[in-house]
């Protein structure tokens, strides 16, 4: 347990210090969401309608941005070899790395999203709903992305391949995240149904992601 706690703290420290991905993800999110109103024009009704979707797309891209380094830095400096030789199961190591990545990169996006939602002229209830779906949905993005990060760990510039591999897998999360956020807005369907599926997808990803990523990492060394 100490081993995994130490790993979490190290990963978190690395992410928030200079050169880590935490701030970069949040800034990218800010830029994407800020640019959209300039593109679609000053139609406030349109902005408030597409607001949840824009926040979700921004969060997805910002999460992917730093994911390619999730295992690659450790592989490049030889740390991955040592991690493989440790007594902690690799699946748990991956789980902890993902949790730390989410705490440093995903959580700031969730925290920033209410502020950015104001930019999109969203109503308070839609802001609350979107923030809640992001809180539940962004871990699913990280855990799914970890599979891609593990598969592309041996490639020098695997970021693009990672995006191509992972984006299709994140489509369900995206669909149910946006639909539960917009459900509140229109009231034509209950919030709880898509939200429960979103939560379920998150839990699935939390189990399957580390298992698949660990299997990929074991073969990456050979």
């Amino acid at each position, binding site marked *: 347990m*100490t*081993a995994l*706690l*130490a*790993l979490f703290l*190290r990963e978190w*420290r*690395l992410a928030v*210090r*200079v*050169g*880590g991905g935490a701030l970069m993800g949040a800034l990218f999110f800010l830029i994407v969401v800020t640019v959209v109103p300039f593109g679609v024009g000053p139609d406030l009704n349109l902005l408030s309608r597409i607001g949840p979707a824009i926040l979700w797309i921004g969060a997805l891209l910002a999460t992917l941005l730093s994911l390619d380094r999730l295992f690659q*830095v450790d592989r490049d*400096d*030889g*740390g991955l*070899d*040592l*991690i*493989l*030789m*440790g*007594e*902690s199961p690799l699946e748990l190591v991956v789980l902890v790395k993902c949790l730390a990545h989410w705490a440093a990169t995903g959580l700031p996006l969730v925290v920033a999203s209410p502020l950015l939602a104001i930019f999109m002229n969203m109503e308070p209830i839609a802001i609350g709903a979107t923030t809640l779906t992001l809180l539940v949905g962004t871990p699913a993005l990280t855990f799914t992305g970890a599979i891609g990060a593990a598969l592309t760990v041996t490639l020098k510039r695997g970021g693009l391949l990672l995006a191509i591999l992972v984006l299709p897998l994140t489509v369900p999360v995206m669909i149910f995240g946006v639909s539960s956020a917009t459900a509140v807005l229109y009231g034509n369907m209950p919030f709880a149904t898509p939200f429960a599926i979103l939560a379920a997808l998150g839990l699935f990803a939390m189990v399957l992601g580390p298992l698949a990523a660990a299997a990929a990492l074991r073969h990456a*060394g*050979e």
Partner: protein
Amino acid sequence: MAPPVTRLVGEKLTLDRGGRRVLSDLSFAAQSGVALVVTGANGAGKSTLLRLIAGLLRPVSGRLALEGGDAELSIAQHCHYFGHQDALKNQLSVGENLAFWRDFFGLADAEVFAALDRVGLARLIDLPAAYLSAGQRRRLAFARLLVTRRPIWLLDEPTSALDAASEARLLEIVGEHLDAGGLVVAATHLALPFPRMDALRLGPATIGAAA
């Protein structure tokens, strides 16, 4: 308490890398207290052999066996691997780097400060690792072997980038490990004066070797 590790035996190990046979029918035995020094030309498979023992590569055929040790742990979990890469994070301080590996490998045996003092880096404990020289990075990576006790040390060119004084200190630490009944498998080009040593020479096409 697990019985001490007495011997590490490899039997008829064969291993391919990238379609090329690197090790073929290699047999060896490393005894506790005696350093097994692996020599051979570039590409003869020295590093490959160490990575094989560390569980990072799988042989095509043959097997590794450990006599003694904790039956619940794999061979790799008995090993410290001191490879070419230092596994250091530039953003973390010297002390943080070492403390992480101590905590990650569990069972702390030594204080971070004491281990750094052994390798002559105690003064730099708060310095970010980015500012270390190549030799200092090597010594910091080596300090990892001191904070957690594991009986088998796999050393790949352990003295590269080290100055004479550091090299002597490293050999002294390895000597103490051997005196305490530890196993050492070292791959090197240099004639390192370990107190007791066996030789294992890998040729381009190795067929068997001395035990």
